[in-house]
């Protein structure tokens, strides 16, 4: 009886230590559980893979550092995919807190593929106003962003000579941790300018995007860290990248974390029913 009463009130610190150890261990020694790509991530991958060399994809970085572990791997994965396919990448953002993260990606990833800033990748930065920004880019990108994030006039960048407005870009990938985000790109860019839109979302808000997938408005969806891992796996399988896959590495930890939570819930319920019976 005392045992069950103890199980009913396990000290939080023990739970935290067990959780911490089980989350850390797979990062040091991967379990190799493997990640299988689902249809939603595959749809986005195929849409980008089908683009001929020289086309541009637009990535909207709409998240902040707190969502970085979940969403940054998606950004890196899609950028690597694009560069491996000799696609050009144009980045912008609707969140001011995403500016540093986009800048980090633009600094770190293009050199892996020998890509040059201004010729193969441009980062426009952040502008206030959501609908005004997207609608303005739909008419003329230079009206909204006369210069890029580093202050270079867009006219001086070779990549921007062929891209005047959103219709010149076949697909946009919006990585969103909330609002504003992919829904604004759907509302203004997809419906008005016929752009394909893919979304990368945190796991908690991914379910809200399913209706858009079913209706065909969204071309593909990466949901949470699992979605990022699925994309990383596809990029590696096709030989586009050999970089470290942080989302895949973290999936082992996430698997164990979920299993730990389930075990704790089961233990708590066993103890609850055992003590209740004895009490009755």
């Amino acid at each position, binding site marked *: 009886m005392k045992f069950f009463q103890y199980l009913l009130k*396990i000290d*939080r610190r023990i*739970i*935290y230590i067990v*959780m*911490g150890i089980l*989350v850390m261990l797979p990062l040091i020694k991967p379990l190799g*559980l*493997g*990640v*299988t790509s*689902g249809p939603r991530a595959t749809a986005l991958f195929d849409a980008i893979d089908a683009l001929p060399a020289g086309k541009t994809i637009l990535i909207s970085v709409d998240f*902040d*550092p*707190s*969502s*970085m*572990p979940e969403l940054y791997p998606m950004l890196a994965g899609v950028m690597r995919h694009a560069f491996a396919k000799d696609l050009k990448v144009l980045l912008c953002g609707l969140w001011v807190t995403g500016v*540093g993260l986009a*800048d*980090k990606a633009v*600094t770190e990833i293009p050199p892996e593929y020998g890509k040059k800033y201004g010729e193969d990748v441009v980062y426009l930065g952040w502008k*206030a*106003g959501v609908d*005004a920004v997207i609608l303005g880019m739909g008419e003329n990108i230079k009206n909204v962003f006369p210069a890029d*994030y*580093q*202050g270079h006039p867009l006219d001086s960048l070779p990549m921007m000579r062929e891209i005047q407005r959103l219709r010149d870009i076949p697909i946009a990938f919006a990585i969103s941790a909330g609002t504003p985000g992919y829904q604004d790109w759907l509302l203004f860019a997809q419906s008005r300018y016929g752009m394909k839109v893919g979304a990368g979302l945190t*796991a908690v808000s*991914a*379910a*809200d995007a*399913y*209706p858009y997938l079913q209706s065909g408005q969204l071309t593909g969806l990466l949901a*949470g860290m*699992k979605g990022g891992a699925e994309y990383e796996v596809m990029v590696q399988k096709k030989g586009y990248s050999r970089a470290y896959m942080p989302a895949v590495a973290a*999936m*082992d930890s*996430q*698997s164990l*974390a*979920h*299993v*730990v*939570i*389930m075990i*704790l*819930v089961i*233990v*708590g*319920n066993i103890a*609850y*029913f055992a003590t209740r019976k004895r009490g009755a």
Partner: protein
Amino acid sequence: MKRSIPLAICLVMGVAMMIQFFIPHPISVGFYDLTTKWIRIVGAFALVLGTGSLILYHVDKLQRRRQGWYYSIVTLVAAAATAVIGLGWGVKTGSPLQDVIFSNLLVPLNASMFAILAFYMASAAYRAFRARTREAALLLVAAFIVMLGMVPVGRAIWGKLPELAEWVLSVPNMAAKRAILFGIALGAIATSLKVILGIERGWLGGGKQ
């Protein structure tokens, strides 16, 4: 007068913005753009208010040597240093504010706070998820299905588990969420109407009259 003028502004602007929604004419669109610019400008002044409040609160705590007064020194020094560095060296890539304060302090601290959620979820789930009733038991089963379905372990246990998890999220879960959203949307409309008509005056500060 102190309350009448804000109430009158609220009524006029509330009705004007409602009417604006139905008028696509350029004059209406221009009015909407102007109003959103004003909202952003007024919001920026809030920064002045907030900074003033922060400084006054911590200076007072420091002067009276209340519990934890040394943390107030940290707050004030950090606020001053960030302001000076930002104003002096700028905020673009390569500046100390961007590199040291944002990338090396703010980003890891934010990520750490977010990471605490994982531990808190475990302890909250352990403490609260008891199958006391049939509904609670059903909730537990659904939670297990979704938790397993979202990770590779689930597919390893049963190939169809991820699809089942997705069904749980996109059908019953979505239905319940939409039902709550209906209520929230109507509640928001009714509360907005009360604010516009001056029935709800809490936002003025100081209760109802």
